[in-house]
């Protein structure tokens, strides 16, 4: 498992473990990967993220076209050997997407249940982004300039 931010490891680990997922991918709605389990090649991760985000965006637009008051929630492909669960969820960092690939030892219902728990956990533990002016408070540039001058011998 690889995660971009440490706080995501526990919720994603629980989702994978409890739903018996083979593969799992968490990404932003634009396809930026934030965590994955089970992929071994970075190319596969990027391709799956792009495709997953694209599929969800497409179905969301389709929902809008047919007059649905909300998107379709989740997209599920169920094959003979494995299935794919793809769904969006809101987080303090914006809307994210989860893609879960599961085998015959799991079910859509199980994945849905643990996906919902995963989404709730992420909402709970994700650090709320700090507004920019808190990141770099007033006077930061002045201090940066002074620090650079001191470091570079400019007075």
């Amino acid at each position, binding site marked *: 498992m690889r995660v*971009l*931010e440490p706080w995501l490891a526990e919720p994603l680990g629980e989702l994978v473990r409890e739903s018996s997922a083979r593969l799992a991918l968490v990404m932003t709605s*634009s*396809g*930026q990967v934030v965590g994955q389990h089970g992929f071994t090649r970075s190319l596969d991760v*990027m391709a799956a993220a792009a495709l997953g985000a694209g599929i969800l965006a497409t179905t969301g637009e389709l929902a809008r076209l047919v007059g649905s008051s909300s998107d379709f929630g989740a997209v599920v492909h169920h094959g003979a050997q494995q299935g794919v669960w793809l769904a969006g969820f809101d987080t303090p960092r*914006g809307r994210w997407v989860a893609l879960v690939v599961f085998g015959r030892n799991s079910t859509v219902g199980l994945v849905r249940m643990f996906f919902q728990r995963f989404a709730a956990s992420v909402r709970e533990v994700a*650090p709320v*982004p*700090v*507004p*920019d*002016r808190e*990141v*770099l*408070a*007033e*006077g*930061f*540039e*002045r*201090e*940066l*300039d002074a*620090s*650079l*001058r001191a*470091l*570079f*011998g*400019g007075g």
Partner: protein
Amino acid sequence: MPRCEHSSGEADVARIDQEKRTIGLTLLVVGARGAGKTTLLRTLRQRIPAERLRAGSAGESEPDPLLDWLTVDLGRIQDWQVTVDLYAIAPVSNRDSTRRLLFNDADGLWLLADSQGNRFDDNAATFRAAREHLVDREGSQRDVPTVYTWSKQDLPGELILAPDVLREGFVPGGAPAFEADLVRGTGVLESLHALVTLTMRRLAPSREPAG
């Protein structure tokens, strides 16, 4: 790498760790072969106090011909620990994946032009390629703070182009440009100072004016 998304919705890639109160900037030094990238990093190693150099490639004794790098600790600014990773990338390299990652994650560009008149086309091709590589992970073109440095301005005048000619040839808009003698260090720290300032400014476009 955590991304910082500021209020305009434009994603920056500076590593900002809210809990540890650290900011890490990734700056790329780009220049044609022989423009002086390795010399520039060597000069920085010599001019910056050793206790502020956190890591880097072998430097003077064994420079990496493909990717030379250096990490500078800018110290604690307000309550943030700020570090700068500088990567000098060879224009031709078999490390395309490394190059792609660096351009994906770059917070600022330091474009180094060889001032010699006969290198004008090489400089132009290198800068054009750098802009083409400067895309985000979704493939969209990125606009990052850029500073230009004209190296080898210490060479005899008949061999080099004047700074205003280089500016006219390479600098779109009002990006800062500095004349440099990389060996003696003239213009090097000034360029880095400007690039760090511009890059940090980009991280906080909505910051209230100081003072």
